[in-house]
Every structure is written in C-alpha cells, then in structure tokens.
C-alpha cells in the first residue's frame, strides 16, 4: 500500500479512528499488528508469511542469545540470526546478480555455464525489515537490550506499518520501550503528525514526481550525447527527486507514527547543506548510516585504528552500503565513490583543519557546494541503468559533448532550477536547526497558508500513485 494512494487514505483513517477509540492497550497493539500485516499483505499476501517467519525466528534467537551461558554459545546463536537474515536478503535480492557474476567469472576462465534464470520476486521492503529485525539480536548480543517476552510486541516493532517498507530503519531497542505504556492522544501531536504527512506527500507527489522526475527520466533515458547544461540539470533533477522521494516517505512515516502516538527519529537533516561527506552521511538516510556505523564500522575498528586501516574500513562500509541499495555494480561504484570521498575528506581535514581560513564563511560555502557537486556526480551511478549510460552522462557533464543535443524545454529547466535553488536555500537556512523550530518561529498564518497550499497542490496533482524509489531496495 502506497502512502500516496486512496487505499492508504481510507486505511489510515479507519486504523487511526479504531486505534484511539479502543481503551485497552493490548487491544490497540493487536490492532496495529493486524493493520501492519494488512498494509504489507496489500502488495503481495504470501510475503506477509515471510515477514512473520523471519520475525518469529529472530524473536526466538534473541531469547537463545540472552539465555546462552558462554560467549561462544552466544556468538553461535548470533551468527545463526545474521546468517538467516542475510541469506534471506541474499536469495531474494542478490540471487540473480550472484548467478550472473558467477557465470561471467566462469566465462573468463573458459567455462561456458548457462545458469537458470531464477524468476525471483523481490519482497517489498525486505532490506528494511531485515535490518529492523537484525538490530534486535545484535543489541541483545551486545548486552544493550534485554529480550522482550512478548512476541506480539516484537512483531509490532518489526512490522509497524509507517516504517515497514521504506524506513526509517527503526531499531527494536528504540521502539520496544514505546510499547510499554499507552501514549495519550494529544491534539498538538496528532495535528503535527498530519502536517508532517502532508509535507511528506507534497515532497513526493508534487516536488519529486511532478517537478523533477520527468526531466531526470528524459535525460537519463536519452540515447544520444547531451550538452553539459542538460546533463547537469538532469543530474540535479535526480538529486532533488531522490531526496524529496525518500525524505518525503520518511516524513510521512514519522507523521503517521506521531498520529498513533509513536516517536520515530529523523531520517534526513537537510543533507544538501552538508559541508563534507561525513557531514552528508550524518544528514542523509541517518537510520542506515548509523546502523552501518554501529554494527559494522565500529566493530571493524572504526577510527580507533591506523589511518590506512581506518580508510579501508570506510571503503568497506560504503561498498556494502552501496550493495544494500541494489544488486548491480553501478550501486557498488556509487558506494565506493562515497567511500573514497570520505577517505579524501579525512586526508584534507588532517592537513587543513587547524588553518584559520578553513572555518571562514567563504571556505564553508565552497566546501558545501563542492560536496553537493560531488554527491551529484555519485548520483549518476546510482541512477544510470548501466555503465554506458553513466559514462555518457559524465562525459556530457564535463564538456565531452560540446555539440551534443539540448533537449530540455525551458519549462523543465526552470522547474529544476527553481526547485533545486529552493531546496538548497531551505537546507542551508535550517542546517543547524530543525523543522519544528522553524514552524515555531513562523507566524501561525504562514503555517496555515503553507499547509493549505501543500494540501491543494497534492489534490491538484491527483497523486499518480507512483511507487517510492526506495521501495525497490
């Protein structure tokens, strides 16, 4: 079920009404479990069984880890949980990719092997709910969380419908405590949740799908050479599209959870105002970057090791982060590019951090725009269907096609320029703040006008029910 669909509007209205009408906290939680499975099953009912089985397995493994006596035994149960989750992810998401690469490798050594094409349907949100579930056993193993006694509570923690299919990646340790006592219905919290949902839908339907996606699709789908202006505009359109698409989903999820009395953390914090790439990853898909930091980067040694090892750790983490996004080498290159950006940034910081000029406004602005440009270059690999397209785009962006085609209409160029400029302006003006503070500072009539305008724009756009980009991951 998509947030931007009529089905969800009716579903959400029914669930919220029933939820706040029921007095018993247990009954309310039961309702949310049923609603979450209906929400998920509305895509493909059989996959709800897969979701349940991985959840139940992790619930049981979590208890085994907690009960195990020795460290070896605890580790064995944890390995069981990690293997179960990752093999599920590997089969559904990377099965064909691994087979194709295996075939290619055999061909290099002269063995012709034709693997069967596995007609595997990717369960929606598998990358997200696998991580929701995995965080539970990992935290129990690390002794920062005690296992819950309630299977129902754990099922709800993994499958809570606002964050189920495209994040944020909510750790069981952050969600389970919220299931202890029933939240009270507060008008401010409820209406703020509704406003956040409107904002998220506005970002997705109006800004991502209407203002930017058409131009990005046209540029990346064009088979001929493009001039630099069109190439850059196409990439900037995609940079905006993916932000508004994913941040829009996260904002909707946070808003929907708030309407039900739950608190999810921010997943984005104005990332295009980042100064440097470590700052970017503290602002972009925060729930994934902190997951990778806590469960991968730090266990690998983090930055408490020699510089070369630390750089290697960064590249490994970003390599896996890239692969998490999709089973294609273009995603791997995207991840590796970000890994190398982080390494270069560390070197530059080491050399110039103490210089006086390094912290003045001009340098910060320059660094900010350089970060944005480098992030855009990396997006080329994320969006391109293959390396041929990526190479053609990069050649265009760096002036390799001075006599290439200029295909964008003036309207499309204006839309990209205005939306991108507006986005960057908002990100820079709020980079050290948050949206709640901004709303507090605004006169109520502006909040009212902005909310009404967003709602009218959503209705006028008639929400074409395009799937969110991150659903495919």
């Amino acid at each position, binding site marked *: 079920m998509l947030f931007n669909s009529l089905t969800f509007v009716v579903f959400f209205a029914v669930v919220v009404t029933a939820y706040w009408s029921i007095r018993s906290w247990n009954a309310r939680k039961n309702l949310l479990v049923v609603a979450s499975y209906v929400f998920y099953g509305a895509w493909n*009912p059989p996959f709800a069984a897969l979701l349940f089985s991985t959840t139940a397995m992790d619930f049981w493994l979590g208890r085994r880890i907690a009960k195990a006596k020795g460290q070896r035994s605890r580790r064995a149960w944890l390995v069981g949980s990690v293997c179960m989750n990752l093999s599920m992810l590997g089969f559904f998401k990377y099965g064909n990719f691994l087979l194709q690469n295996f075939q290619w490798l055999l061909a290099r050594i002269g063995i012709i092997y034709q693997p069967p094409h596995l007609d595997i349907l990717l369960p929606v949100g598998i990358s997200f709910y696998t991580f929701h579930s995995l965080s539970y056993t990992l935290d129990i193993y690390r*002794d920062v969380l005690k296992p819950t*006694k309630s299977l129902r509570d754990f099922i709800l923690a993994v499958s809570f419908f606002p964050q189920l299919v495209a994040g944020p990646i909510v750790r069981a340790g952050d969600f389970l405590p919220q299931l202890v006592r029933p939240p009270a219905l507060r008008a401010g919290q409820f*209406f703020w949740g509704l406003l956040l949902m409107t904002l998220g839908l506005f970002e997705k339907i109006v800004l991502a799908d*209407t203002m930017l996606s058409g131009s990005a699709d046209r540029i990346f789908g064009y088979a001929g050479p493009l001039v630099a202006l069109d190439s850059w505009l196409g990439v900037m359109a995609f940079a905006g599209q993916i932000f508004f698409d994913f941040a829009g989903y996260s904002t909707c999820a946070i808003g929907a959870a708030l309407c039900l009395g739950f608190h999810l953390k921010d997943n984005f914090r104005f990332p295009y105002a980042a100064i440097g790439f470590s700052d970017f990853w503290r602002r972009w898909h925060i729930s994934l970057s902190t997951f990778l930091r806590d469960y991968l980067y730090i266990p690998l040694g983090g930055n408490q090791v020699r510089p070369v090892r630390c750089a290697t750790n960064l590249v490994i983490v970003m390599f896996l982060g890239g692969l998490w996004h999709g089973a294609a080498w273009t995603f791997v290159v995207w991840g590796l590019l970000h890994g190398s950006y982080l390494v270069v940034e560390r070197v530059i910081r080491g050399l110039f951090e103490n210089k006086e000029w390094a912290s003045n406004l001009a340098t910060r602005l320059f660094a900010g725009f350089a970060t944005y440009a480098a992030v855009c270059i990396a997006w080329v690999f994320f969006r391109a269907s293959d390396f041929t397209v990526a190479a053609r785009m990069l050649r265009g962006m760096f002036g390799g096609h001075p006599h290439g*085609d*200029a295909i964008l209409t003036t309207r499309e160029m204006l839309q990209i320029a205005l939306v991108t400029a507006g986005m960057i302006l908002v990100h820079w003006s709020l980079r050290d703040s948050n949206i709640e503070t901004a709303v*507090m500072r605004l006169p109520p009539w502006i909040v009212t006008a902005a909310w009404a305008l967003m709602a*009218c724009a959503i209705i006028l756009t*008639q929400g074409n029910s395009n799937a969110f980009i991150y659903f495919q991951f």
Partner: protein
Amino acid sequence: MPSSTSNFKRILRLPRLFFSKPPEIERVHGGPPFEYERPIPQVPWRGITVVVVLIVIAAVSAWEFCCRSIGYGPTLNDNEDLWTMARQRVKPESVVIIGDSRAWYDLDLDELEKGFGKRPVQLAMGGSCAYPVLADLANDENFHGTIICSIVPRLFVAPPGTLPMERTEKTVRRSHTETPAQRVSQYLAMPLEERVAFLKQEELTLDDLLKRLPIPNRPHAQVPPRLPPYFGTLDRERRARMIEECARPGSELARMIQQIWIPLFTPPPPPTYIPKEEFEKKMGQAIEQRFHDIAKAVQKLRARGGKIVFVRFPYGGGLKDLEDRETPRAGIWDRVIKDTGAPGIYYEYYPELKGFDCPEWSHLSAGDSVEFSKRLVPHLRKALQL
C-alpha cells in the same frame, strides 16, 4: 512541552551511543517509557487545522466550478487499473475489442452485443499499439474467443521504446502484477471520478497545467507533442463517447483537436545522434519484426480455435490526407492481412460504412457510433464466419 527553541535541545536528546552501556533499568524492555520524544511545535493547532480544512474545501470547490464552467465534465480516467478490471472480465469465449481510440469511440457495445449474442469486452486504448494486447491474449491458453482489432498503421507498428508501445506494455504488465491495494484504490477512485470534473489524470493535473504555460523554448528542445483535450467520456466498461461540444459540426473544440492530430500523426525527424540511413534501416527491421510477431500471435490464437478480424475505422479531413500519404493501404494494412491470413474490414470498401463524418477527423460522434456499429455487425459476422 517546550516553550522555546532551547528547550528543544533538551527534549531532542541524542540517541545513546552504541558502546556506552546503559544502566540496568534501561536495558530492560519496560524501562524508561521513551528513549526519544519528538518535539511538537507549540502553535494553535486546532484553529490552524480548521482554517486549513476550510481553505482546502473552498479551493477545491472553486477549481471544480472553474473546470465545469470551461466545459469539463466528470468521467473515468483511462488508467491501467481500469483496463485491468476489463481484462479480468475476459472469459475463454469472449468477444474482445483491442486497438486504438477509434475502436473505443466508434464501436457501441450494445449494438455489438445484439449482433454477437454476448457483450464484448473493451480493451482498446487511446494512442496505443495493439500488439502487446494481441500477444497477451494469444499467450493466454484459456482464451479462444474472438478479437476485433482496430488498425491505425502508425500505432500498430510503433517500434519498441516508443510511447504507443510503452503505454500498452505497461498496462498489460500491470494486469499481471496488480496488487490488492491498487485494485482497492481503483474501486475507491471510480465513484469520485464519476462525480468530480477536475479529476483528469491526463489533462488537469499540476504537471499538465505547467506544460501549457506559454514559455518559449530553445531551438531543438524536444517538446512532447500536445495531446487533444477532453472530448469524450468513459464508463466502467471503458465505453468512450464523444461529448456534444465536440460532436457539433465545426465547433471550436473539434477544430482545435483537428489541428492537434496533424503533428501527432506526422512522423518525427530521426534522432540527431544516428545517421539517417542507419535509423531508417533499424526502423525497417523493427517493423518487419512486428509483422512477424503479429503473424505468430494470430497463428497461435487460431490454433486454439480463436478468431480475429482487423478493422480500419473511419477517419477524415486533413488527417485522412496525411495518413493516406504516410501509411497507404497498400503498405501496412495489406501486409498484415496477407501475413496473418485473417479477415479485414477496411471501411472504405463498403458504401454503408463509408459515409460517416468524423467531427474532429479521427472519431465518430456518440450517435454515429451506434449506427456505424449496427452496420458493421453483419460484416464482422461474415468475416468471422459466424
């Protein structure tokens, strides 16, 4: 509740660090109620919400009034889910209409039902290539019914990657992958679309309104061709009927649409990045492949006892001059009939089918579609040997 921005920082506690082990009480499920609580801006929420609801209701009502005053009326959107609903009505022995918008507007389902003894299923799609639907029905092992297939040559042989082809492929794919949520959304949308005039996904969306802004373009910018505005209504059976305003001879709307068909039916220039000869060669190969695929699909269908008849529906005015020049009968039409061995009805061969006037050059009015269908039925029955 926070009363200033400084308080937000206190409430917006940073998540605990992974390696700083929390105290025992916090490790227990059932420890502190909330690790994290989102700040809620303190503004007069009830008042704001009431005003927002009133503004939205007023704005939407005004927009609806405006759309109706300039001639729009409620109708269903022809989307993938509506098509999927129709596709699901196809039974093994159904009579199915496929093809482009001429099969949509020119055929009256009631008249065909009288003639065939069963109600046909309307699967034609505006501006689309019929081949993916033909292939889908040919591959459906359960289906051995009758297909009435409209041919507009430029659309029928549209190569892969072009809009007419992509539209049909996407729709056919949706019919195989439609989720329960999408089906429910369609059921919820239909009563709204039948009552609200501004719900037009291909015309009155923000995107389409922006496209109409009169902004001059750079030379060589690829401007998508303009599509005709609202001129027909669609019901739950996907029956299309031309609205009165368009059916009126010489109406402004009909004349405007006539001028839109000309660029739409004019072959676009070849892309600049491929030599013209190479492009023409590729197009030629793609069209040859299409003839081959069509013949194969028809053969497969007939092998199961299915039947198919190709129909060329009336068209007129400047559009007829253009179509006859660019895609003469001796070209694609004759080739399809010859390769497939299927019967064909070219309206111009039959005096009783010939005299109809298309108000906007491409489709019949609602009234004429009834009479045309009545006259077409005997020819269809004869061609299909019924």
